[in-house]
């Protein structure tokens, strides 16, 4: 199983010369099993590049099938849905999975296309066949993978954290979660138990939890605590803050590594890693 990082930024994109090594696009991941089965996580601006790359893999001629798991509906995880080229090509089948407070993910995503904010006016004007699924906690049937969802608190929105298994390997994507002040959320620890790769947001320095309180997201020490408690093989920090330059992110990674007994990396846009 491979993971490709199309966008690793949180909150809003970071454009400019100081953000080139880690990359400035917001959240989008591609997971590819050895069988060739593929799923995507999140529709941040990184998904624009993924959408273009998929055109060569059947999506350009309307033969593509893709499941997209959403961690939540904040714009840094959904804004590129109207710019994801495969949605405009008839014949493609796209299933979107996620959760919102009122169990109507479809209605929330429809607001992205509202005529005030988007010239497409409605998801009805997309030519691909798009199905939106509200998930509950537990396993999900997605071809080629074993996937488990867990709904968690994330600011005023609902977040979903995911465990994905294939080829005898496992990853957990924990990027939209407010852990309680007392420590990591036990249900999230359980979900991520023993995974080969934990992707956790770790946008903030351990000392800047005032940012975490305003914008949401975890400090590196929280991310490390989750990784250690869940006994994961390695931790990858993602959802980088847009005000952090490449040098800031190097320093943040060093801070995490000093805290952690588990190997820690920091996600970089454009990288593909073998789990």
């Amino acid at each position, binding site marked *: 199983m491979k993971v490709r990082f199309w966008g690793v930024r949180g909150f809003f994109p970071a454009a400019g010369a100081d953000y080139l090594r880690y990359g400035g696009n917001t959240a989008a991941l591609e997971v590819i099993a050895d069988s060739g089965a593929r799923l995507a996580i999140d529709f941040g601006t990184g998904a624009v590049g993924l959408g273009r790359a998929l055109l060569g893999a059947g999506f350009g001629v309307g033969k593509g099938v893709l499941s997209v798991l959403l961690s939540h509906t904040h714009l840094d995880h*959904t804004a590129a849905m109207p710019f994801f080229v495969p949605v405009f090509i008839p014949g493609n089948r796209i299933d979107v999975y996620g959760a919102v407070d009122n169990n109507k993910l479809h209605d929330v995503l429809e607001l992205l296309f509202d005529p005030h904010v988007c010239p497409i006016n409605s998801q009805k004007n997309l030519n691909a066949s798009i199905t939106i699924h509200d998930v509950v906690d537990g396993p999900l049937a997605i071809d080629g993978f074993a996937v488990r969802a867990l709904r968690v608190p994330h600011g005023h929105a609902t977040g979903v954290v995911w465990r994905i298994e294939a080829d005898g390997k496992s990853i957990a994507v924990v990027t939209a979660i407010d852990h309680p002040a007392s420590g990591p959320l036990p249900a999230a620890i359980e979900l991520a138990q023993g995974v080969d790769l934990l992707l956790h947001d770790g946008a903030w320095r351990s000392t800047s939890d005032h940012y975490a309180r305003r914008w*949401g997201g975890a400090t590196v020490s929280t991310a490390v605590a989750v990784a250690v408690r869940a006994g994961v093989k390695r931790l990858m920090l993602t959802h980088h803050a*847009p005000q952090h330059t490449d040098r800031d992110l190097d320093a943040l990674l060093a801070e995490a590594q000093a805290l952690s007994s588990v190997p820690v990396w920091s996600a970089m846009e454009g990288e593909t890693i073998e789990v």
Partner: protein
Amino acid sequence: MQAIFWGVRGSYPTPGPETVRYGGNTSCVEIASRSGERIVIDAGTGLARLGEWLAQRQLDTGRFDLLLSHMHWDHVQGLPFFAPCHQGKAQLAIHALRPDVVKLRDIVRGVARHEFFPVALDDMAASFEFHEVHPGRRFRASAFAIRPFRLNHPFGAVGYRIDGDNSSCAYVCDTAPFNLLLHKKHFLKGPEPLSTTDRRQLQNLRASLVQAVQGCDTVIYDTHYTQDEYARFPHYGHSTPDHALDLLHGQGVRRLVLFHHAPNHTDAMMDEIDAQYRHKGEQLGIEVVTAREGLALPIGNAASSGPMHLVAVP
């Protein structure tokens, strides 16, 4: 006065190595007077960078007049990340067109909602005022006299002529040209046949725009597409540099700023576009400048507003 470009991109932000020089943030332009008063036009992701710049310099964040051309995502998505929105003493006056029955405050609430942003409008510390813009009805914002005019864009958009410091500029974004199709409220799959009323309305739109830009020192224009791209997507609501020059030629306009660059336009492409249209502009007697992030552009009497330079964007 001076125009400072905080975001010059159209449609969506495009970070990455190929857009470093022209910039990847979406539409946001600051207009500053000689004495330091300012208005901001559009709230794309460039607005978040302006907020950081202000915060770093601890500049006064009292009252902000924010003029919106319309509320498409690329023109509003920076608002919830604008630092002054989270400062109790800041006051944001938002001026915008109300395209249907929904009240302005409710449209902005619908944008800056908990489902899309970590802090929703109602939870922001700043206080907000909402002022409806009526095409043709002048108003004042900060040190400037503003004249709004309607543009040709899906669901409606307005441009603004801004006068102050004995100089003038106009912001003409987003707009399609005024010949092939008329944008209304519904989704367009492609060009639709024009009725007689449509043609008359297009003529009226063009005429009010031409009138508004008369004698302008600088016109910032939605020149999203190349001619080839426009031929493929004429119904997406944007223009080309040729459309802009065509419209501005003979109206006493001194300078055209190419703006709202398509997301697929790399720095290399922008260099070509820049060279091509600087040349074409010269022949027509219009100076052409391609907007890039951080550009501070003196408007009117250069001696009073300083030379063209780049601001260090945080």
